[in-house]
């Protein structure tokens, strides 16, 4: 543990300030609460928003999991985990069920979250209306007036142009019938996991200086039309090459030698857990 810095890096005043913004975010689901985002020892846009939430919330008894693009082992996840454990000494885990705090970039884990867990999502672009309105001042007013026709029009235009909605990750959602929210760039596949979630979901955007939240048991509906319903990514008839799972988010990979396409669980810890259940501790 690096004792040259305070527990969890921040001074207590900073933590309190971030927690205060977080409480406000929880009180107004989907509303982007501005906060005095600190300069962090990792790059802006590398998860500083999520990291600030994590550091403001973490206590000595927490167990931390960090995911980046579905993997606990990817460079950014390892890096963030290292910083938090260096400055707090808390235990880290790959197992979703063991974790009390889960900081994630671009994925909600496959294992359903429980009520004693907090999911913290890193958000690059918190403003769901930014695509058609570059000005922050304008989008703030649009939210205040619940003026979301631009968002609907954007989806409508996609349907007119391409025959379907072409949002990738970050398909906008309506939270508790009030605020349109960017769910952070999670795949459309993960959007439904936010609806009536047992766990508290916090979203932090460090560079854009916003915190917002989906409290437990909150209504979260992906924007769509009656005749063009919201469609998550489809992995029908596909399953993981390693653990055989289907109905999960899969990565599409190409075998360099045979040129064949194959699929593998994107959530690596879920994949390993499933493998262990099938072959406990490698015993066949």
């Amino acid at each position, binding site marked *: 543990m690096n004792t040259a810095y305070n527990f969890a890096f921040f001074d207590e005043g900073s933590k309190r300030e971030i927690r205060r913004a977080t409480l406000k975010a929880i009180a107004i689901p989907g509303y982007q609460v501005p906060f005095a985002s600190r300069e962090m*020892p990792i790059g802006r846009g590398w998860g500083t928003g999520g990291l600030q939430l994590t550091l403001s919330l973490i206590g000595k008894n927490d167990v931390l999991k960090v995911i980046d693009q579905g993997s606990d082992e990817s*460079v950014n996840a*390892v*890096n963030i985990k290292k910083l938090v454990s260096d400055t707090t000494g808390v235990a880290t885990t790959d197992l979703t069920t063991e974790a009390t705090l889960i900081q994630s970039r671009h994925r909600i884990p496959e294992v359903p979250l429980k009520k004693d867990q907090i999911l913290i999502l890193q958000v690059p672009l918190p403003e769901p209306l930014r695509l058609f*309105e*570059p000005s922050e001042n304008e989008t703030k007013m649009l939210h205040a007036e619940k003026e979301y026709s631009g968002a609907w029009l954007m989806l409508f235009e996609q349907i007119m142009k*391409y025959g379907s909605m072409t949002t990738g990750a970050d398909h906008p959602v309506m939270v508790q019938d009030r605020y349109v929210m960017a769910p952070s760039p999670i795949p459309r596949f993960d959007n439904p996991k936010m609806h009536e979630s047992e766990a508290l979901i916090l979203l932090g955007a460090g560079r854009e200086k916003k915190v917002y939240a989906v409290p437990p048991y909150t209504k979260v509906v992906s924007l769509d039309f009656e005749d063009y319903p919201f469609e998550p990514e489809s992995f029908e008839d596909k399953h993981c090459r390693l653990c055989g799972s289907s109905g999960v988010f899969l990565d599409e*990979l190409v075998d360099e030698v045979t040129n064949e396409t194959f699929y593998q669980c994107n959530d690596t810890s879920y994949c390993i857990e499933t493998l262990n259940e099938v072959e406990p501790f490698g015993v066949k």
Partner: protein
Amino acid sequence: MGYVAVKGGTHAIEESIKRLKYERVHHGQTIEVEKIKAGMRGLVDQVMSESSLYNETLAALAIKQAEGNPEEAVFLLRAYRSTVPRKHYSRVIETGQMNVDRRISASFKDIPGGQILGATTDYTHRLLDFNLMDESDADVQEWLHQYLNESFQGDEQQLTLPKVLDYLRKEGLIPTCENNDMEPDDVTRESLEFPSSRSQRLQILTRGETGAITSLAYAVIRGYGALHPTVGELRVGTLPVTIDHPTDAGDDDDAFYIGEVKVTEVEMLMPVTVEKEYGKKELEFEIGYGLVFGQNETKAIAMGILDNCLEHPTPDFPSHNEEFVLYHIDSVESTGFISHLKMPHYVTFQSKLDSVRKTKKEGISKGQEVKS
């Protein structure tokens, strides 16, 4: 008032220059050019990139003289560059021949040849390392000795790798393109005209001021632009430079190797809408290209973003307008003009003052109150 007056002006300037030297040396210590070259790689690379002059020693000298101020160092080096005769043009360099130190793709997990992190601050924590306060040359040499023993068994390998984009082209995911080895329009020899050629655009972008390029590209991806890019491939490494025999131009085999340059090359992938027959629209990938001297990764990525912006002008955003971007990103031009505001403007200001007073007087004569 001494500074413009006929008498005393010369003396005042001399004193000012002396004072400048005093500020540089008043701690009673001087920094050696070799030390700057050894320890300020980031600044050296940035200055070389913005100066379009590849010479680490001269860049280090400029940095010393400029007291570490990059805009001033680039100014010095550009001014020197314009005195250097141009004796040869190199042969076309294929970046596929790069000897790679670092190479990543943010688009694909599995790229042929693998991801090579190399030297990067990306995965360091930006915590001040107080140990560096007392780092000595002896410490450094000892560490170096140990590191070289551990990490390099025998000769260091030359590593050339296939391009990620070639792999995608083979898959048919991005359009193929032909090599264009035409001699580029040299922006340092002919002035820029609009519409500009791509070679002009790429040169001005690569010479552009790091901060300016970065902030314009940042505006583009934040919403004042129409792009959603991904890094297809970023590579840092050295490229061999060869020239033809002066009288007897042959092929590659007859060319003379004159050294190598370290560069950062970026190929960005941008999904764009393409209109097909009968108004049908499809999504396709397009490319934005960035190549800069030295290890300047943010700048190279930003250049890749702006390259694609300028290929696709849109009236909605100035960042997609080549005049707006290309005229304003040059370090020497922009800092020169901004700093010229410090020159005396007594005459122009006097006539402006006269006009201002006149409008006020007319206001009073018409019985209006003048608010001060």
